[in-house]
């Protein structure tokens, strides 16, 4: 691990004492109770523009200073883990779109890799499939960060950036549409492969998009990185020291903003990440501004990764050649007995997974998206747990918010870039 600067930041109680010094006792001999302001309870959300979804935070305020914060989640709970126990592995793929709905392709890949790890085929995927999956993950990362940065700027009062990045995101959705047939609900991966190959001309479209998005990222930087208002609102606000970030289990850009150089793509390379060149950006002070800078740089690295994948994209099949895992081609199903049986068993009973348990962590745009699968054999999991990054990242709020001004709330929330669909599952 690279050397990191240790960040000094006080614990909640010390910060509060500093932010709101206790009133001195009055000279007239009156009790201090009269002079003490009453604490006010403010309910933010569940539907509030700055909470990006349905997050509710119950704040306790002393004047303008936050003295206590209690995040309440669960307004978007749909019981995905319960549903997974009743579905075959392939049937659950569309549900992963709805976790982090700003990066559905990355969720599809994460889930497929988890099931493939259980089956023991995650190292035996076809090369073309692996490269296409990396392209999917990185496009999803660019899309998610463009939205994250755009919304963050809007929270801090810069409307232009939001519209500017959204124009670019629209192009990613067009690419998704021609690739998967859907703009948001992609359901692109299958266990052991992909639902379809790249359409003709897609590589050129993608290259053109990459050339355009680099310009857009540079322009976004000129809007924000040296913008006095933006810098004043984000620098030194919401500082998370390295040890606290680890203690609270932060992952993704939020962890790297605090100076921990850890990226699952580098530390435990899956797919073909070990063959590709990219850097992992880290912050130095752990404040909101650093988390923003990390996201900006990650987008550039993603562009670099997609360029390399398009250059090296091999030919060949996209699915593993095993009829017991992937559906056989339709023309063979209609003409041959064995393929017909495979098709029938695959659809009605699902892939036959061995008994056992695995955990697979995937570097999603928001952090570590992990799937824990407990199998007793057969086509459905006995238990499937989704370790979602937004859920864990939000748990630090009750530690982080006290001591900040109320107006810093939106700056801190925006810098976390969370998605409630994934938090509440």
């Amino acid at each position, binding site marked *: 691990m690279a050397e990191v600067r240790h960040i000094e930041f006080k614990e909640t109680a010390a910060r509060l004492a500093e932010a709101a010094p206790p009133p001195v006792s009055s000279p007239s001999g009156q009790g201090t109770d009269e002079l003490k302001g009453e604490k006010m309870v403010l309910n933010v959300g569940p539907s509030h523009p700055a909470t990006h979804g349905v997050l509710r935070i119950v704040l306790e305020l002393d004047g303008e200073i936050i003295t206590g914060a209690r995040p309440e989640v669960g307004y978007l709970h749909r019981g995905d*883990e319960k*549903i997974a126990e*009743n579905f075959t592995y392939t049937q659950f793929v569309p549900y992963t779109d709805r976790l982090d709905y700003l990066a559905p392709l990355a969720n599809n890949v994460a889930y497929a890799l988890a099931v493939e790890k259980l089956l023991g085929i995650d190292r035996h995927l076809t090369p073309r499939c692996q490269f296409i999956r990396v392209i999917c993950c990185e496009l999803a990362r660019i899309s998610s960060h463009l939205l994250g940065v755009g919304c963050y700027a809007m929270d801090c009062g810069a409307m232009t950036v939001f519209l500017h990045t959204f124009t670019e995101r629209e192009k990613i959705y067009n690419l998704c549409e021609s690739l998967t047939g859907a703009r948001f609900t992609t359901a692109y991966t299958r266990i052991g492969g992909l639902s379809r190959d790249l359409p003709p001309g897609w590589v050129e479209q993608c290259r053109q998009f990459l050339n355009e998005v680099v310009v857009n990222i540079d322009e976004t930087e000129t809007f924000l990185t040296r913008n006095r208002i933006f810098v004043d609102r984000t620098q030194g606000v919401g500082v998370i020291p390295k040890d606290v970030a*680890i*203690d609270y*289990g932060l992952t993704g850009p939020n962890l790297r903003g605090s100076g921990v150089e850890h990226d699952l793509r580098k530390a435990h390379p899956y797919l073909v990440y070990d063959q590709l060149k990219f850097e992992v950006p880290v912050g130095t002070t752990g404040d909101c501004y650093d988390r923003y800078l990390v996201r900006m740089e990650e987008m550039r690295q993603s562009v670099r990764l997609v360029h390399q994948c398009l250059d090296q994209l091999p030919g060949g099949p996209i699915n593993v050649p095993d009829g017991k895992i992937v559906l056989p081609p339709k023309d063979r199903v209609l003409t041959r007995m064995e393929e017909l049986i495979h098709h029938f068993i695959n659809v009605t009973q699902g892939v036959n997974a061995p008994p056992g348990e695995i955990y697979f962590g995937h570097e999603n745009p928001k952090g*570590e998206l992990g799937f*824990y699968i407990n199998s007793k054999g057969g086509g459905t999991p006995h238990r499937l747990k989704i*370790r979602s990054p937004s859920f*864990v990242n939000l748990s630090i709020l009750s530690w982080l918010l006290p001591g900040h001004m109320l107006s810093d709330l939106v700056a801190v929330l925006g810098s976390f870039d969370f998605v409630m669909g994934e938090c509440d599952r």
Partner: protein
Amino acid sequence: MTALELAQQLRAKFPGLISEPVEFREEITLKVSDAERIPEVCAVAKKELGFDYLVDITSVDNYGDDPRFTIIYHLYGYSHLCWLRLKAEVSEEKGEMPTVTGVWRTADWHEREIYDMMGIRFRGHPDLRRILMWEGYPYFPLRKDFPLAGKASDVPEVAFTNAAPLEGGPFVTIAGGKDTVAREPRVRIPDTETVETNARLERRQDIKEAHGHSHGPGPIEKKK
């Protein structure tokens, strides 16, 4: 240092408490025979073996077995980049084990989620409330005896009073049924052998009672 070596070191510190490491898909699992000593084991794993990041805590319901619940801890160390899985079992009668919030602060929400979904209480937790479901919800939905379609409740103010607000819940595929209703039932109740389609049949019954016919508004009377 590999995960297996770290697992052996942890095992050596607690003789008789931790089982032989099990390896599956390059992942190491250790079973702690006494759930009461989990915080102790975790503290040693964090302080002496560098497992400074608690990835996840989760629970599994082994319905029909004793002890019924398994609690699973996923540990990770940023200094050695190794994962380790710890498991402990909790019986249904006890339904309680000590918290590890004193070791990692991130355990707070994970333990609340397990309490919410499986109904296992964590002794010493600073704020053990429901997290995903709402206050006052009467059931623990991830338990295996909780049906997919939901459960009726007699507390109309806090929970649905009818099962399956979506008219039967999602489809469940079971191969080998005699007709499509049996092959793709909407509700699977783990206790019963027969697969029932309660919600859909009930709804059909309601329509029949209202209109005298289950499909559409009823037979058209001939004009005289």
